[in-house]
């Protein structure tokens, strides 16, 4: 087990190194000089200042030197400076992390809480009206843009319930109930898609397992239906679902980006969009790398979880 984790960890580091090169090259493809763009958006005018920033960003040095310096900074935990705010980027990002993490965890909870049971029910009652209904609901989840769903939710809340979601962030220390209410609806909007995907995966995985011999044995032994479905079948059907969860995590981040924008939540994902729109490229570069690290680590976690769940997988 330990050797497996070490190997997998080395692979993750290699992947991250490759991803850093991709990010670095991509942002250097941007048309025009980064310093000029920063000047336009930040309103600097002094040519001496321009020279200073060019030097600060190492743009007067070879590309390879720029790259090495960037990685060295990252390794030291330095996320660069936001030229928009004139602050170290980390100071802007840090207070935003809990918001995005909370939203992400809640959305994942919504996804698993709705997707898994509905998928099991759908499979256990295949070809009934309930199954068809659930399948249509889940297919609709895959078809709706998350930001539109968010807008509809706000619309309904205001029109029908006369409740306007707070436009400013409510801190949990100040008002726990208000805070949870504020996060509940964005989590629904962001999690629906993943719930739909988990539902479909659970259904097809359960259908396969339910046809296996040992399940038939369970029925023949006269075990109660619930024990067969939940204790025996679901356990083996879980593996492919865990895999999907791992890949879906990356998609969930996309959902968070638009949901934070719609619900005006001050999270990391929305900050990425803002930084891109302001052409705050040093921040974009570091933020995308940050997201890449999170994704790679979560994939790593899924792989290890997978190996734990399935004794048939050898740790080599």
């Amino acid at each position, binding site marked *: 087990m330990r050797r497996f984790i070490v190997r997998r960890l080395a692979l993750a580091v290699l992947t991250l190194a490759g991803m850093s090169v991709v990010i670095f090259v991509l942002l250097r493809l941007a048309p025009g000089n980064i310093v000029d763009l920063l000047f336009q958006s930040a309103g600097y005018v002094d040519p001496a200042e321009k020279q200073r920033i060019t030097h600060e960003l190492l743009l007067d040095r070879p590309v390879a030197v720029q790259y090495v310096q960037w990685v060295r900074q990252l390794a030291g935990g330095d996320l660069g400076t936001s030229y928009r705010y004139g602050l170290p980027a980390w100071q802007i990002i840090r207070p935003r992390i809990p918001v995005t993490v909370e939203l992400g965890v809640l959305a994942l909870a919504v996804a698993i809480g709705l997707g898994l049971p509905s998928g099991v029910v759908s499979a256990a009652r295949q070809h009934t009206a309930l199954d068809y209904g659930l399948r249509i609901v889940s297919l609709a989840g895959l078809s709706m843009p998350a930001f*539109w769903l968010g807008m509809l939710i706000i*619309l309904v809340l205001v029109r029908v319930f006369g409740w306007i979601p707070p436009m400013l962030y409510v801190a949990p220390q100040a008002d726990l109930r208000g805070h949870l209410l504020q996060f509940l609806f964005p989590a629904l909007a962001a999690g629906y898609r993943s719930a739909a995907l988990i539902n479909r995966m659970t259904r097809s995985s359960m259908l396969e397992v339910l046809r296996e011999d040992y399940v038939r044995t369970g029925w023949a032994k006269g075990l109660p239906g619930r024990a067969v479905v939940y204790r025996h079948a679901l356990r083996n059907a879980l593996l492919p679902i865990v895999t999907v969860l791992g890949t879906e995590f990356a998609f969930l981040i996309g959902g968070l980006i638009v949901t934070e924008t719609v619900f005006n939540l001050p999270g990391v994902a929305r900050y990425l969009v803002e930084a891109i729109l302001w052409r705050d490229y040093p921040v*974009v570069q570091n933020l995308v790398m940050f997201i890449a690290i999170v994704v790679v680590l979560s994939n790593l976690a899924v792989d290890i979880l997978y190996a734990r769940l399935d004794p048939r997988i050898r740790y080599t």
Partner: protein
Amino acid sequence: MLLTLLTAAAAGLVATQDPVRTDAAHTFLPPGPQHWLGTDHLGRDVYSRIVHGARVSLAVGIATSLLGGACGGAVGLASGYAGGAVDLAIQPILDIMQGFPLLVLALVMAAALGPSLLTVIVAIAVPFVPRVARVARAATLSIRDAAYVEAARGLGASRARIALRHILPNVVAPLIVMTTAQLGTAILVEASLSFLGLGVPEPYPSWGRMLSVSAAEFAQRAPWVVIFPGLAISVVVFASNLLGDGLRDFLDPRLRI
């Protein structure tokens, strides 16, 4: 799906109004006989904008799926058939590309390449390449050593001929399934990019941009500005998902995603 295609093709005929003409006197008109789905904050006809937006959404969706499908198919075929060093060189690159969240990669590419229709197509197609390539590679590997491929090799067929004439036709079915499955995602990603202000630029009417942040502010006064474009996206993606599911069951009953 067919209806949307027809609508997109005949947008000029189906639309009742000019989609880009503004009318300051008639902003936020509710749906009625003159403006079927009402007007937006600039007095533009929502129905006509949706009809014309179908062109952009479908063009982007189909172009990205084809581009991503073709590139991914070629890479996967080459990687699977050549094997060895080629395979070893290509796989890590695909792994790295797949590590990025789709929307994040598309966002950064759209920002780096500057706003244009072509940019959006490339920005959405590139993240698809590794996903398609993976499927094509797996399919190629499964038939690379089949008896009839060996027979062709024995008859002295060239490597390129074997790859194109004998392997490609057998890889096409899963490729089509995968590409159709991507169509809905492509339309959704385009909508998200446009919604965030990094998609297809003005003057093209785009469903995503009709829903952009500015539209959200008017939602309380004129809900139709928000409801109908989103409904259009959902219906088209729903239809393409159904199409994808149907094709999958028809062409490849084993593949379950």
